[in-house]
């Protein structure tokens, strides 16, 4: 448990670093604040419309695939603790092979249907 106290204190140190650096910057840096410098950058021309726009559906297909594989990976890590157990032997191997195999078939299917192409 005490290790996480240090993790917490390191996090705090990082936040402190950011806050102090910003405080130092506000002491040193100039404040001109002309309104024109606060406009959105669009290669030198006046910005058209808003920056927040609708976007392509392909992003969420990737997100779905990622969630599937991330959950898969989470199940892999505890396996590391028991894989060497001689009582379990090849049983765990076969079980994980089935588990990953199904997901792999899913990935192949997604690739075949063209979901892994960017454009």
């Amino acid at each position, binding site marked *: 448990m005490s290790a996480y106290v240090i993790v917490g204190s*390191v996090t705090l140190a990082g936040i402190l670093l950011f806050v102090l650096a910003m405080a130092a910057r506000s002491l040193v840096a100039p404040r001109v604040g002309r309104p024109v410098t606060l406009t959105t950058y669009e290669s030198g021309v006046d910005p058209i419309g808003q920056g927040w726009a609708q976007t392509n559906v392909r992003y969420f297909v990737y997100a779905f695939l990622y969630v599937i594989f*991330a959950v898969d990976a989470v199940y892999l890590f505890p396996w590391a603790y028991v894989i060497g157990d001689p009582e379990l032997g090849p049983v765990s191997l076969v079980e994980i092979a089935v588990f990953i195999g199904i997901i792999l078939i899913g990935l192949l299917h997604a690739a075949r249907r063209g979901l892994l192409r960017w454009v």
Partner: protein
Amino acid sequence: MTGLDLTVVEIVLRSAAVLAAFLVLPLLVGQMEHKVMGHMQGRLGPMYAGGFHGWAQLVADGVKFIQKEDLTPAAADRRLFRIAPALALVPYLVAMAVVPVHPGWVAADVPASALFVLVASGVSILGMLVAGWASANKYSLIGGMRSAAQLLAYELPLVLAVASVCLAAGTLSLTGIIDAWSPVWLLWQLPAALVFLVAAVAELNRPPFDMPIADAEIVMGPFTEYGGLRFAFFLLAEYAGIVLFSVLFAVLFLGGWRGPAPAWTGWLWTLLKALPVAFLIIWMRVAWPRLREDQLQRLAWLGLVPVALGQLALTAVVVVAL
């Protein structure tokens, strides 16, 4: 170190040590990049700041950055825009705290530290996403979306490569992995090592995987609206990332502190092994043209993920068979 009750002084000292490493090592890597890139491209790199071969260039850069006006675009989501650099930077600091560099030298000896490092470094990429979204700029949004897709694509092979090493060692602790390491791993875990290296460079959005930033097409991606100190923090995060992944590579695949020398040189071995990896990451940037966005996705899903899964199967079969 777990189980021991720590005094406040010790907690502060350990945090300060991590912070010191975090502030010094990225600068060394940054300076190395300046000089290595310079010489690889037939020029000198910085030569004036500080006198000797421009050693103080990054200090001078820092002084310049801190004197710049802090701009938040009127259209931006103010609060998110302002904290995004911290969100990119702090997770790398936290991740560094759990990496062992010497027998018994680890700031926070967390159980399952291999998993913890992956989690912490994964959070950092949220900083880029938040920056891309909060800027309310079209280039930033496209860059942010690209970095999201890149994170999703390359986080997987990275996690699978680490999982392979964990399976081989039979533990999730980085210290345990170093203890279990033997030179045979250089061959046996080679595919995982290559996948890890490529995925790490992609996670850092460094060339040849810098499509989210792609200065030739979307200005500077998520960083388009950033300047001054906030931009500097994004840069620092990138170099801290190089340090973290180089040391992690040394710990996972090269045996960390183990080497043919007296025990007290352990930390030196860790640094000696991490240094060529950092050099390699810089070299990749100079040597290769960047991948197009669709090629980049293709490489991850149809190249690295199958290789990583194959390595996982190989590792598991060998571990069970022996």
